[in-house]
């Protein structure tokens, strides 16, 4: 065991996989010599050599296309898109190629690639360094979308993603790279030090894709969250004193539908929170699934909280971000008795 930040845990996962599997290689913008703008690939080139971890042209479409070709050959490329906001030039490659290759070729070719990308807000990155595009990928049949919320999961899920024979979009909530940010932006920042999930085993282990984690058991309401919002929800639950069950989805595709339905059938209430703007966000799918599967157990309307339906606004970061006060308000709405 070693105490690690999420960045260190991700770096460790990559290091472990580079060591274990000669078919794993890493590339992306600034990931080689420099070690990545967030340092996730720090030292990997020095340790494993330039052909295992190297820099690329500023060409997200080219990066993903190259990865798919390598994957078709038999390698397991792990590529970094520097910010999830920049993934859109690669969208055609992900949607039309990576996601469809196995299906359309009847298993002749497939794309065992992992596309890592820091996403989400809370760093004053404005609209080009803050977005949460997970719903775009969740909608694409053939892609898996994974979002860790702590160092332990980050390492285990990244290893599982690299080993996965399907293309995985691995979204890293960059606001919690260095500490479990709970949305209280005006309070002193916490590091991962001392957090139970910062205790990371050395060497190889994996966390299976499609298994949610119940972080807090509760009887009154189920909260579905992922990424940074897990920590925001945790704070809001503590502050309201509501006996909520908090589920960290960990991957949205595949989705742990059993954990969700089991919990909501037990609590009879459901709050869904994500950073992404609300309309047609992934919360819409979650809300529909809960309604379809738990309707007769529901005691109050499903609550769905997200960013406002605006582009990510620089100066209004904390007005946009669904912080603990808004989560708490939504929790209380869940608990309201019908008039």
């Amino acid at each position: 065991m070693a105490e690690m930040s999420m960045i260190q845990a991700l770096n460790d996962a990559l290091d472990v996989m580079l060591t274990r599997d000669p078919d794993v290689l890493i590339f992306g913008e600034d990931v080689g010599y420099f070690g990545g703008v967030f340092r996730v690939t720090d030292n990997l080139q020095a340790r494993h050599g330039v052909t295992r971890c190297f820099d690329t042209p500023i060409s997200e479409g080219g990066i993903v296309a190259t990865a798919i070709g390598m994957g078709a050959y038999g390698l397991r490329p792990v590529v970094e898109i520097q910010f999830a906001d920049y993934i859109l030039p690669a969208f055609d490659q992900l949607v039309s190629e990576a996601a469809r290759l196995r299906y359309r070729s009847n298993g002749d070719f497939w794309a065992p690639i992992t596309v890592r990308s820091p996403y989400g807000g809370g760093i004053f990155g404005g609209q080009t360094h803050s977005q949460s595009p997970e719903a775009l990928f969740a909608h694409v049949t053939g892609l898996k979308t994974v979002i860790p919320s702590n160092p332990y999961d980050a390492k285990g899920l990244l290893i599982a993603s690299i080993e996965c024979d399907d293309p995985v979009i691995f979204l890293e909530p960059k606001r919690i790279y260095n500490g479990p940010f709970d949305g209280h932006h005006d309070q002193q920042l916490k590091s991962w030090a001392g957090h139970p999930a910062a205790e990371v085993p050395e060497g190889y282990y994996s966390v299976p894709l499609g298994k949610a984690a119940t972080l807090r058991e509760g009887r009154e309401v189920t909260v579905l969250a992922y990424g940074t919002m897990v920590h925001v929800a945790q704070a809001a639950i503590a502050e309201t004193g509501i006996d909520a069950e908090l589920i960290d989805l960990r991957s949205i595709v595949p989705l742990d539908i059993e954990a969700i339905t089991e919990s909501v059938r037990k609590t009879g209430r459901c709050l869904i929170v994500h950073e992404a703007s609300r309309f047609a966000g992934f919360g819409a799918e979650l809300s529909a699934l809960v309604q379809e599967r738990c309707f007769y157990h529901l005691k109050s309307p499903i609550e769905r909280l997200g960013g406002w339906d605006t582009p990510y606004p620089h100066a209004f970061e904390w007005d946009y971000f669904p912080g603990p006060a808004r989560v708490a308000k939504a929790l209380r709405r869940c608990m309201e008795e019908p008039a």
Partner: protein
Amino acid sequence: MGDDGKLQLYIPAPTTRPGDRPDFSHIHIPPAGLVARPEPLTDHDAMRELPFQLVRVLDDSGAAVGPWAPEIAPETLLAGLRAMLLTRVFDERLFRAQRQGKTSFYMKSTGEEAIAVAQALVAGAGDMSFPTYRYLGWLMARNYPLDALVNQIFSNAKDPLQGRQLPILYSAREYGFYSLSGNLGSRYGHAVGWAMASAYRGDDKIAIGHVGDGTTAEGDFHEALTFASVYRAPVILCVTNNQWAISSFSGLAGADSTTFASKAIGYGLPGLLVDGNDFLAVWAATQWAAERARRNGGATLIEFFTYRASGHSTSDDPSKYRPVDEAEHWPLGDPIERLRQHLNLTGHWDDARHEALLAELDQTVREAVKQGEAIGTLGHGKPHLGEMFEGVFKEPDWRILEQRRELGI
């Protein structure tokens, strides 16, 4: 161009339209055999004229002339002729099958057969082509089963792709034929990645990527060339310039301003401009680029200059946008006739054998179509419905399983 102080928006247009006399006078066709053949590892800087000089081997008499004339065993040339003819016969028959309602869609390679066939025969068994939809000749040259092609086109129970893909968008890994898609250019970068993977592993395989003239305008084209150049990937990147992208003439992709081969210069790569209707020139250029790639000399861009003698697909009528007899006036002739002429001239072929071969191939294709019809044509004798849900992921998740159950399978 005016100079009256007002800007003018320029919209390019082809020289001729329906009703006009076909006119290719703007295309300069040099005599065969004139272009010098540098040693394949020559620095790209020393070959900057090459992308503007049309490499031709077969002269008007059918003789192979000049420094690019390759050494090819006669039986290989005959195999090439056979594969080109088979492609054409198959195309004619299956195009008609679409008209008869046996399939939804078809696209012919007519006039472009030399490119795929010569490349299939000159490339190594482990090399991978990343084809366009006019690359059937590769499969024909590598003896892919005709029955499997027909079954794919008919989307029947024996379709190798199990009814999941549009007709003719084949995939045949064992034959060095990468999965086709209807999105243009999106596999060009895969060819580069595949080639880089071969280099990463220290293997000796190379990749051959393909796009058409129209697709050179896509970002994928430029991204792939950038990666190919930056990482010196062992890949041959080809542009089949067949003059037409559905109804858009090649000028809309920039052909009025420069050659597609010359795009290589900006990437620091060698560019070859090759008569795509000349089997021997296609062979020689591919062999040159393959040698360069295999010796760690990196990528080459090759423009195959040809003409799309058929419509784009079963869904368009070319007489609506170009002179109906334009193909007959194409100055570089027909690839099959030109190789046939060469083989006749060298005494390895004659008209009687040609006619006999045609009849044999026609019969072979008829039989393949017949077996396909017996299994099923579009909408009949389909693959098992469960196939619709297979291969989305390696293992299905609960959505797939629930939806299968909903359909009762």
